[in-house]
């Protein structure tokens, strides 16, 4: 009797653990900006993330495709909050048509010649992006107290409009200049350490910002700079042992790793 009781408990435990482990999902694809809320924190849902608890919050036009441990797919595309346990109800519709149906439909289409019509339009739709930027490169981390922004010369225009966008609060500064570079210094309003920025230039006072190329950069504070330096500790030591000077090391880090000190 005791053995039977223990066996039942063992079977129940195995079944329960299987159930629990099946509730782990990996994010296969996302569209829009869906978020995952776990307890008091929310974070964006990114491809490759794995989770087994929390709520998925989707807004209008958001889509998330999830993969469970067995490889089955689930598609969430309605604006609402989904609990993890609800996800299994949204298995992605499989292609239920069998081979025979698909094949004979294909034969029928060929007989009816339904696929023959094609349009051939000989034109190109292209939007020009104005890209004159040289440095700082896109996705750079900068720790220096001054930043020199450099761009290519456009001989047709006299004035250039320099734009600096604060990515956190989405504010933009515009400066009119005649040259091909501008240097800004760290201060408490225009360039604040710890913030993320994007910079770009245009030749019109009020440009179409969809056609202006912006390079992003993180302006590192002391703590961020120290953390980032740790990431490159091995590289820095390697360069030192190869006889590089401090300036040369900084130049290499800026050129190759986009970490400018």
């Amino acid at each position, binding site marked *: 009797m005791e053995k039977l009781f223990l066996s039942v408990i063992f079977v129940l435990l195995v079944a329960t653990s299987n159930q629990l482990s099946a509730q782990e999902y990996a994010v296969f694809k996302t569209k829009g900006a869906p978020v995952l809320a776990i307890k008091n924190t929310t974070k964006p849902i990114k491809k490759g*993330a794995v989770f087994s608890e929390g709520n998925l919050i989707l807004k209008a036009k958001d889509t998330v495709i999830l993969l469970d441990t*067995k490889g089955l797919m689930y598609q969430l595309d309605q604006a609402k909050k989904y609990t993890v346990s609800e996800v299994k109800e949204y298995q992605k519709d499989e*292609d239920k048509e069998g081979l025979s149906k698909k094949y004979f439909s294909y034969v029928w289409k060929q007989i009816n010649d339904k696929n023959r019509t094609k349009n051939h339009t000989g034109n190109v739709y292209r939007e020009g992006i104005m890209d004159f930027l040289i440095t700082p490169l896109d996705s750079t981390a900068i720790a220096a107290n001054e930043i020199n922004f450099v761009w290519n010369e456009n001989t047709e225009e006299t004035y250039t409009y320099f734009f600096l966008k604060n990515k956190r609060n989405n504010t933009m500064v515009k400066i009119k200049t005649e040259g091909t570079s501008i240097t800004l210094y760290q201060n408490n309003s225009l360039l604040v350490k710890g913030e993320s920025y994007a910079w770009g230039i245009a030749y019109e006072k009020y440009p179409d910002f969809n056609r202006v190329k912006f390079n992003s950069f993180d302006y590192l504070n002391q703590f961020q700079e120290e953390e980032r330096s740790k990431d490159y500790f091995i590289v820095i030591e390697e360069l030192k042992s190869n006889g590089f000077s401090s300036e040369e090391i900084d130049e290499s880090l800026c050129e190759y790793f986009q970490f400018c000190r």
Partner: protein
Amino acid sequence: MSKTKLLFRDAFLCLLLSLVFLWGVSNLILNLSIFNPFTGAFKDFSFLDLYYSERMEKKEPLKDIVIVNIEQRDRLEIYELLQHIKQQEPKVIGLDIIFAEEREPFIDSLLVESFSEDNVILSKAFITDHWVYNAPIFNQNKNELGYSNLNFDRKNNVIRTFEGIKTINNTKEYSFSTLVAKAFKNDSNYNKRLEQRLKKATPISYQGTQDDFFTFSYDECMEQERIPFLKDKIVLLGYLGTPHGSDYDIEDKFFTPLNKGLVGKSAPDMFGVLVHANIINMLLHEEFIATTPFWLVLLISSVLTFFFLAIFMVSSTKNPASYTLSKKLTQLLFTVLLLWFSLWLYKHHILFKPEVIISIVVVSVDLIGLYKIIANYFNKKYKWKSYFFQ
């Protein structure tokens, strides 16, 4: 000789006539340059491509392989990507990239350092008659090196088969996909068990396109500090277009049976690393497609043709009015149904090429008229008896 025996003899002789005719015509088409456009058009054609181009395959989950696009990134960026991927603890990392020459010593030495672990598999390529390797500096760690050639069939532009093990210059070589699958399975008997099969050209069981595999662009991968899904997976680094997955980028892209254009002009449809991913997926699940031997195809063709010839020879004498119509309808129905049967077999992992059977049956039945003329000539000249002229 009884009429039935004469009928069977005539059916057999007409079958021989058809085989000689088909052999002659196919040789003529292959050898005369005037027929080059036809040769070119039919060379890459297979009825069974319909299985993939019309998406008749059963989709299986593709959860063990992740592909990361190296885009047009330089060696330093590839090094950073590799370091980032290693932090995610994948089981195997395969590089479908060849660093053929040395460039900047410092960056090359960083890359060499990043290849130092056993789970990194590198590739090489056999081009025409020589190997293209990584520069010697990259092979310091004695990583496993697999050939990235998908197959060695130089006559066909469509990648339908692959060769997992190949003896080249008296050395047994393993394909990149075979080594990656073996490393993932961690099975020392893997090659031994599958050696005979992998030595031959094996049909590829395609399971997915770029939409079905887990793929990351360079930025998608780098911008996330942790990607838990990559843990214990196979991560392949290769080219998936710039921008990621671009339809218009044909670098390292191949024609596969999944191409929507079954015949005629079309663009290549699948990046090389995705073909490798399909092969690896097939090797992991050991779901191979058995090929029907050619002798069996010929035997079935002969039996079926003999059967149809006998029926239509009777029909041509008994129902001459409806004979032509019924012959054409039968040819059409036979082609449609045999193709359906071949696709059904393919679904159950049996490769049964219908082209030979269809061509022999259809052409033979149409040659009954010619056979009648020859039989009539011999009957008049030599009193030779046949089912038609006794």
